[in-house]
């Protein structure tokens, strides 16, 4: 399997506080990697290091063989275009309609012209089940709808990989399903995905690889079968016992 992402010896500290240490892993094309672990374990920070929303770390991050960690400004922007990010808080642009949210970056960055971007945007909205919301403003949508638009917006850049940081944690329980099912569909279509989530049954179903992160380290890693059923790591078992209860 060809590696899209390679992380080597990543270490990140805020002053004295070391939040990531000794992080190395690879992500193959089409692979689904799920990060789980207790709050404060470094999952978000790790995800953010991958596209350098978080800077000033040591070690290296390669994306399709190119160094993200060492990239200059222009190059970094090119790399970021291929890594879609979905945030816990959606972060849709409130000054733009749903369709404008989706079209803005592809048009601005000349990935598509206006006409193609609109066509692609409407297709993506259809895929996330929101075709009729193209002209709505984000504030008028429910959380679940906003998050589906956010996924469509990231997909509009035709990314090679999608990073999700707790995409359902800010949602009312009844809206979690609609977002997870969009993500499941994306997974089936072969998208490479790195997902931070507390939705354990989703993790178990979708993950090719589960990384259990604790205190800034990858404390345990393996197939979902291994992590959820076979691992004898006491911290993994303790964490799972807590969240599955």
């Amino acid at each position, binding site marked *: 399997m060809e590696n899209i992402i390679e992380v080597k010896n990543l270490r990140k500290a805020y002053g004295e506080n070391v939040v990531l240490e000794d992080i190395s892993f690879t992500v193959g094309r089409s692979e689904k990697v799920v990060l789980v672990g207790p709050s404060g374990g470094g999952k978000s920070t790790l995800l953010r290091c991958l596209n350098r929303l978080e800077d000033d770390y040591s070690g290296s991050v390669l994306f399709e063989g190119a160094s993200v960690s060492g990239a200059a400004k222009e190059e970094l922007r090119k790399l970021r*275009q291929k890594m879609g990010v979905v945030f816990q808080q959606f972060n849709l*642009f409130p000054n733009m309609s749903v369709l404008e949210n989706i079209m803005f970056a592809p048009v601005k960055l000349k990935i598509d012209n206006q006409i193609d971007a609109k066509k692609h945007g409407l297709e993506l909205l259809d895929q996330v089940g929101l075709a009729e919301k193209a002209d709505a403003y984000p504030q008028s949508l429910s959380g679940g709808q906003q998050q589906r638009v956010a996924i469509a917006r990231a997909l509009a850049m035709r990314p090679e990989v999608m990073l999700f940081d707790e995409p359902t944690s800010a949602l009312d329980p009844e809206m979690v399903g609609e977002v997870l099912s969009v993500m499941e569909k994306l997974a089936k279509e072969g998208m490479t995905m790195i997902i931070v989530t507390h939705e354990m049954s989703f993790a178990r179903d979708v993950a090719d690889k589960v990384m259990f992160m604790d205190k800034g380290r990858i404390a345990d890693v393996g197939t979902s079968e291994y992590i959820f059923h076979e691992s004898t790591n006491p911290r993994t078992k303790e964490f799972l016992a807590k969240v599955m209860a």
Partner: protein
Amino acid sequence: MMFNFLEKYYPLFLQGTAQTIIISLIGIAFGILLGFIVVMMRMSRLKVLSGIARVYIAIVRGTPAMIQVMLIYYTLAQFLDIPSIQFLGSTLDRVIPGSIALGINSGAYTAEIFRSGIISIPVGQTEAGISLGLSEQTTMKSIILPQAVRNILPALGNEFISLIKESSVLFYIGVQEVTAQALGIGGTLYNYVPPLIVAAVIYFILTFLLSQLMEFIEKKMGAKYAHIN
């Protein structure tokens, strides 16, 4: 009758009102432009730029507007060769440096208003922008600033209103705006109270109209973000 003098002096009040409006408009325009430049400097990662911006803001906020106006006027008068053409009862070589001084004063306040607007936008907006591969400049210009401007409209309106009132300091450098006219007329009449009351009413009407206009603009801009609240 207390206000009989108006029959004779109303043209001077009209002229003064026009002068006040003009110096305020120039001051506001210049202040916004300067405020925009200063906030970009203030929020720059380059220490020199943000340092200059901080010093400028601190000086303007920490000294009387009257002294600023005089200092700027006498300094500019030395370096700029503005012809002393008559203009609404004053001369351009007073009106222009005076308006610039108002703008330099207002720029510090508008810069701070802009800054509060920009930092009121959640950092997630910037992160979403740059994660899409947009440059920081594009993110600022197309995503952050439009939201920030909308948030600060009320504060900007207040700044315009206080600038109109403070434009009376140009009296000290001989610009014949409303306050100067009222004082001049008061001197002639040996009674300052009636003309000052007239001046106060004129300021009140100007600021009231401006606040109505700002409300209208806010509503209009709000309509674009349909469904908010």
